[in-house]
């Protein structure tokens, strides 16, 4: 008799989704136009109609942010600014369940992840940055660092509320006001966040939320009233933004793609390593910029690790994101599913060996089974290009130096993993790796105090920690 887990669905009753949304500008919800649907990727059910912000709306939002900056926010002491951020953090904690359910419905990620990771971290980011607002003189940027003004912030669909927190919290703590555009496919938690701003009595115009697509993002990037751009998304779009703002005086921070190497040495603690590999690439359906998408196995333990990895993968529960026992949820959109499928096909075509556990995937919705490719080399597309899905490319190495060479042999440089029980080797490897975030004997760990960002084409700047504040304060550089 096997132990099948009966369905354990989280209740939807805690959220109430409006049939149609506008934008949040100047402290009010205003009507929008040119609506498009946002869909639950697990069921393809239309959740709501979302407005597409055009020039008029973006102008209104930037003007509201500018007005709030000049008349209120830049005049307010850090002490008082901080207290607004504390209020926001506390209300997010109070409404945590509501946010978690909404995030899962809109994004497709398992409710366990929204509930236990995304939402608590988002609230923690506000709590942490609230405490910086009146301590900026200790940030290492001078005795009286100044904010930049109005920040235009464009965030991705993989961690919608968390990415909002990573952008809004430091910007406000440093004294800026913001115009934020959530991703096209995941606007709902940002719109709920606007309600939190109202409950916290945040002065009108300090936070403005406009929804839309790439065209809306471009309007924000190019708007002359924006002093600073913060973007998280693909490297391709990051470069477009860098070129677009080159003739201007706008500050830019970018958090872009990755193809992280997850390096397993022969003295790794093997069961926890297998857990870490699984977490590194299948957490959040692999929709993670810092995902451990290239597994580099020391050749003398490759067979053993792969054997255990496959056994472990058999136990991954793929299915209804609203079920509390689901480990891997739906792919966020049809478009993303197509990209993953195409790249996986390239893996087959280039001669890598594909393997997935047997997985009953639901009929409706966008799904991709957790997959590994063995026999991958650096020259394969699936070793170079970011797949952004639950697909792991497995390579081998003979010596630590070779592992480092392979790990660094990429234009990306966001993150890396090291698995070993030898401290000196772990520290040596971390010293050699050209990556902004390095996890040793763990993976995908985030904290508001811990700076996050990449080397090379993985972006500019850091988010979180004391280092992350400099993105929103005037620094020494004139560019």
């Amino acid at each position, binding site marked *: 008799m096997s132990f099948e887990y009966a369905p354990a669905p989280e209740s939807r009753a805690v959220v109430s989704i409006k049939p149609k949304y506008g934008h949040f500008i100047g402290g009010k919800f205003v009507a929008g136009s040119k609506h498009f649907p946002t869909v639950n990727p697990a069921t393809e059910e239309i959740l709501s109609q979302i407005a597409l912000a055009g020039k008029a709306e973006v102008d209104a939002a930037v003007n509201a942010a500018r007005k709030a900056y000049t008349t209120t926010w830049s005049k307010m002491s850090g002490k008082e600014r901080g207290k607004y951020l504390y209020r926001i953090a506390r209300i997010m904690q109070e409404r945590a369940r509501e946010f978690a359910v909404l995030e899962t419905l809109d994004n497709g990620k398992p409710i366990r992840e929204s509930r236990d990771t995304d939402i608590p971290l988002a609230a923690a980011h506000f709590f942490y940055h609230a405490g910086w607002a009146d*301590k900026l003189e200790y940030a290492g940027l001078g005795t009286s660092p100044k904010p930049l003004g109005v920040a235009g912030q464009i965030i991705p669909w993989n961690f919608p509320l968390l990415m909002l927190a990573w952008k809004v919290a430091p910007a406000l703590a440093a004294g800026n006001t913001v115009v934020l555009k959530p991703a096209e496919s995941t606007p709902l938690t940002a719109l709920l966040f606007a309600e939190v701003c109202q409950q916290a009595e945040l002065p009108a115009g300090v936070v403005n939320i406009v929804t839309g697509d790439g065209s809306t993002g471009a309007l924000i990037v190019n708007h002359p009233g924006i002093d600073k751009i913060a973007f998280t998304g693909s490297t391709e779009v990051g470069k477009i933004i860098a070129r677009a703002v080159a003739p201007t005086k706008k500050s830019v921070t970018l958090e872009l793609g990755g193809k992280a190497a997850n390096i397993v040495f022969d003295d790794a603690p093997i069961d926890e390593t297998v857990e870490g590999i699984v977490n590194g690439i299948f957490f959040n359906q692999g929709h993670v910029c810092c995902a451990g998408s290239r597994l580099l196995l020391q050749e003398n333990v490759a067979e053993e690790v792969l054997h255990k990895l496959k056994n472990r993968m058999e136990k991954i529960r793929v299915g209804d994101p609203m079920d509390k026992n689901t480990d891997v949820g739906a792919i966020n959109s049809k478009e993303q599913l197509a990209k993953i499928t195409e790249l996986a096909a390239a893996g087959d075509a280039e001669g890598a060996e594909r393997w997935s556990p047997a997985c009953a995937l639901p009929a409706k919705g966008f799904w991709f089974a957790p997959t590994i490719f063995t026999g991958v080399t650096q020259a394969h597309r699936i070793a170079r290009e970011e797949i952004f899905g639950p697909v792991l490319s497995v390579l081998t190495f003979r010596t630590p130096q070779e592992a480092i060479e392979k790990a660094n042999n990429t234009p990306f440089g966001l993150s890396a993993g090291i698995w070993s029980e030898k401290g000196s080797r772990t520290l040596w490897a971390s*010293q050699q790796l050209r990556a902004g975030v390095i996890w040793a004997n763990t993976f995908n760990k985030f904290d508001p105090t811990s700076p996050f960002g990449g080397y090379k084409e993985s972006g500019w700047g850091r988010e979180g920690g004391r280092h992350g504040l400099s993105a929103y304060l005037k620094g020494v550089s004139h560019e």
Partner: protein
Amino acid sequence: MSNRIDVKKTYKLYINGAFPRSESGRTYEVKSAKGAFIANPCLASRKDLRDAVVAARAAQAGWNKATAYNRGQILYRIAEMLEGRRAQFVDEIMQITGVTKVKAEKEVTDSVDRLVWYAGWTDKIASLAGSTNPVAGPFYNFTIPESMGVVAAIAPETPSLLGFIDSVAPIITSGNTVVILASTKAPLSAMTFAEVLATSDLPHGVINILTGKKEEIAPWMASHMDIDALDISGLPAKLHAESKVAGAENLKRIHSFKSADPGRIIAFMEAKTVWHPIGL
């Protein structure tokens, strides 16, 4: 209109999350600014101090092990609770010190805001006081500031609430626990503050509050071998030297301060530096 007799509060000590009377059974009289009788707070004895130190020591490992985030949330909750009970504190301050309502309100406001300020330091002080050090060799070398253990403090006579908070909050921010002697003439704020602490998810024993005479309690604090450090901001200057002589027995770290500053947090931390080779 009836002349209702109000129910007056009995003020007790705050030790290990409970409100015991002094084991000595003694009290002393506290009068209002106008000379009217207000209350008989406990006159703490050296044994009360002894018990408080036991409680503080027992609580220290757990408080230190809590994440900085958790400690910050608890400090913020203390601020939430204090804000909700402003009126009581304003009344007590006015009654005992005779200041105007405006001044009393400002002290309470500043006290709440000060707690919020300290709450935001718990997870940032390491950025300030810690470092990685570029030693001239193949070693990873880092310095982390850690809490010291049990700190005893003597709160300033005035301001009776804000001064008390400025003594107590920086000590616990980093993970120390504290035994504090409140203002002698104006102890009510500290004792009512104990009620705020009792409703703030603060673990028992992290803050322990005694009321009584400085000349009686301070020497026992200074000589106690299980107290790691001492804040003598509230002790009259003429008694500083003898505290330091007594404290030298276990090399207590002894400080006094005049204002709020993150340096007060760092003063009650120890810097630990670790070396680890970097190599294959």
